[in-house]
């Protein structure tokens, strides 16, 4: 019979980041991560299309998220702007997160 079914269930945490993340605003980002971590998500999806600036303080939060939410946490970064992408690349984060145009 030509029928095929695939399924998966998971907990996801979605965050939309808009504007600039420096050491000040990174604190809000961190608080949000801490809040979401209590639900032990399997995936963290960051919508960053309208994130215009991220300093290393923002990257620290990503590393914190991975360490806090567990090694199995898959991080998706959806549609980073070029400068944000470059910063992820210069700091090796692109090896540990999934940079995508669209979350499926």
């Amino acid at each position, binding site marked *: 019979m030509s029928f095929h079914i695939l399924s998966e269930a998971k907990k996801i945490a979605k965050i939309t980041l808009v504007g*600039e993340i*420096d*050491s*000040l605003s990174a604190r809000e980002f961190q608080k949000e991560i801490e809040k979401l971590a209590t639900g032990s998500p399997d995936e963290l999806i960051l919508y960053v299309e309208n994130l215009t*600036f991220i*300093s*290393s*303080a923002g*990257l*620290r939060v*990503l*590393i*914190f998220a*991975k*360490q806090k939410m567990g*090694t199995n946490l898959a991080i998706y970064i959806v549609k980073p702007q*070029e*400068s944000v992408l470059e*910063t992820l690349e*210069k*700091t*090796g*984060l692109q*090896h*540990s*997160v999934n940079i995508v145009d669209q979350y499926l």
Partner: protein
Amino acid sequence: MERKTFPGTLDSLEGIRQEVKEESQRVGLSKKATYNLLLAIDEIATNIIMHGYEENDKSGVIDLQIDHRDNQIEVTLEDDAPPFDPLQHTLPTEEFFNKPLEERPIGGMGIHLTINAVDKFRYEFANQRNRNIFVVKVGDA
């Protein structure tokens, strides 16, 4: 530009970036070079505030000076925290950046990003003050 003085607290970061951004746009620095300059300045200013002042239980200011001459833009940050030369700090290695996130220390990226973001980065200790100087050529692609 005349010198501007900001309190050495995190809520000054945005204003510092804003000043540098306006001047960079005024002299025609490319979008990408401007972004990188802002990143470098934000990283060092953060370190002054957090490591220089806060961790030493001190408070103080950050003085910002922007000069444009000889087709380059030069930004200087001056502070009164204990002397610290970012260029003497051991930078993370290739190996560090290739580690999975769960095995990496959580910080240690700021000085690396700073040095990579500008054409020249200089540190001086003069008149009992830290002076961090960022230089970017204008008119580059």
